[in-house]
């Protein structure tokens, strides 16, 4: 059984007729697997994971056939039961570490809070464990950092603290929402390395939400490419990079600057993600897709499995056996 199994997840803001921000998403993560979710801003990557964590507030509406995590349907849990799982077995690291920590409390307090809440550790025991965690996330002079406030730490340090908080109760699944986007390039690699180390060491599942395809290519086992709230392609790494089957995945990969070496212009996909008022009747990518045909503009394709994964396209690319 999968560690995480999301079936037909939709998230809307406003009322049930509103255009969904996440639109019928199916997703699974195995124990110990690294799954990357990629897609441009507004494609619903973060909202999907926020919905799983129960962090979507009114007027947000979350619906799903199931949100199975570790044998529990998160969607049907009451607040208190959910809070026994969230922060313990299922935890999250956010994008901007400089604002993700509470400025009024010391680093030690904020880590110990998790230990107290989920493991019942108190006093010296909690402090000792917090110190070990800071050492584990490779913070130099960890003992003195316990009493530091977030504003005394650099961005990289703060993200290490946030990671320490997230792994404090040894989660089974860690969600990292663009954990390196707000950091210096030199620090990004270190933080990714740390996350992957921890993932291997504790054999936890890791969902990596990112823009950075280079990171995905190096770290993930599997990729889910999202566009306008839908999964448009699921595939293994590196197969998906060598031969993407969805035109959007292909465009994303082409847009990596290194792939445009020698060219006078970087490769881009013209147009923007459809919004509320210009949502196409057919395939959501059809206005931007270089391969779109008349059929694509009228009909919505479904996410269909193929030999290397799945693609939401009537005319998938790079397949040996032609479909349709």
């Amino acid at each position, binding site marked *: 059984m999968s560690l995480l199994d999301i079936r037909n997840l939709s998230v809307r803001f406003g009322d049930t007729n509103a255009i969904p921000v996440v639109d019928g998403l199916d997703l699974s993560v195995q124990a110990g697997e690294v799954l990357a979710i990629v897609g441009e801003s507004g494609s619903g990557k973060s909202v999907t994971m926020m919905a799983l964590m129960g*962090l979507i507030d009114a007027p947000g509406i979350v619906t799903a056939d199931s949100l199975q995590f570790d044998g529990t349907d998160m969607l049907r849990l009451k607040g208190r039961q959910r809070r026994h799982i969230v922060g313990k077995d299922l935890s999250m690291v*956010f994008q*901007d570490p400089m*604002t993700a920590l*509470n400025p*009024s409390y010391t680093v030690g307090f904020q880590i110990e809070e998790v230990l107290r*809440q989920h493991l019942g550790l108190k006093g010296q025991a909690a402090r000792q464990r917090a110190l070990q965690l800071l050492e584990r996330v490779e913070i130099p002079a960890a003992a003195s950092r316990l009493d530091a406030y977030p*504003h005394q730490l650099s961005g990289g340090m703060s993200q290490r603290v946030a990671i320490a908080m997230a792994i404090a109760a040894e989660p089974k699944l860690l969600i990292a929402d663009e954990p390196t986007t707000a950091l210096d390039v030199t620090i990004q690699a270190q933080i990714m390395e740390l996350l992957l180390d921890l993932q291997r060491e504790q054999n936890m599942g890791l969902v990596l939400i990112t823009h950075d395809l280079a990171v995905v290519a190096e770290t993930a086992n599997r990729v889910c490419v999202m566009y306008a709230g839908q999964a448009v392609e699921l595939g293994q790494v590196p197969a998906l990079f060598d031969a993407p089957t969805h035109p959007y995945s292909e465009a994303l990969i082409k847009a990596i600057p290194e792939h445009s070496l020698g060219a006078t212009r970087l490769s881009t996909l013209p147009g923007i993600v459809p919004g509320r008022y210009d949502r196409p009747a057919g395939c959501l990518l059809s206005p931007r897709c270089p391969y779109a045909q008349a059929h694509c503009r009228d009909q919505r394709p479904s996410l269909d499995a193929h030999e290397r994964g799945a693609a939401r396209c009537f005319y998938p690319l790079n397949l040996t056996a032609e479909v349709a």
Partner: protein
Amino acid sequence: MLSFIARRLGLLIPTFFGITLLTFALIRMIPGDPVEVMMGERRVDPQMHAEAMERLGLNKPLYAQYIDYISQLARGDLGESLRTRTPVWDEFTTLFPATLELTLAALLFAGSLGLIAGVIAALKRGSLFDHGVMGISLAGYSMPIFWWGLLLIMCFSVWLGWTPVSGRIDLLYDIPPVTGFMLIDTLLSDEQGAFADALHHLILPAIVLGTIPLAVIARMTRSAMLEVLREDYIRTARAKGLSPARVVFVHGLRNALIPVLTVFGLQIGALLAGAVLTETIFSWPGIGKWLIESIGARDYPVVQNGILLIACLVILVNFVVDILYGLANPRIRHQK
């Protein structure tokens, strides 16, 4: 932290001189002098008037009077009242506990109710409760204190007869002043029912005096709380699996308190100023009433030094608030 306190203290010196200069000048700008007021405006014998003015040192040029005043202050002498011949300091210390008691009661009322209402309004944003709190607080903020006080007296004292009209305690009781705080003194005395009576007297003035601070604190708490609840660290706290109460109070309110605390400090100044009106309406024997009477009598030493003492108090309170602010906000504390 120490340099933070030292810098704050350094700022006090110019403030102090500014206040002495202002009160000194302002009281002298009011037409009429103490001698005239004492003798009655008509038929002042010019010679007697000149003699009295000379005796009081009021015939010297203004700059000389100011230097006299400052050198007197430097010796720690606050002078004595022209009317009662009692040292200003003695009058002040006798009356001040009454004002302090009223101010603290008003602050307790405004602070507790304002925080609770503000937090609930922020949590239930857009609800009927939220709109109600905001509407009422806007009305409260715009209310002229003297009118509001009279209105409450009409309603609760005259029509309903629930509270007494004026004073600190019923004349039936003879309470020996020990601390100067009526609530404490009545508890210390053996008189039956005196405490309840003192409390009854305190309620209405405290509500009147606390109305504006209540409105300000409720609105400030609401907006600070709304801002804080949108912060990323609140999301982090929720992602930790903490209870909603802990998220709101430990992670939210703690940060929202920082701006509220500033407003709280400023309101204490406003409270002491508001006490002048409230005390007059309720015949509350405190500093405010004392100052109003002294201004009427052009009692220069009392007005100058009474206002100076109150100003020092406001400065002191704001100083304490600044320190609390530093304690509440580690980013301030660590500033070099």
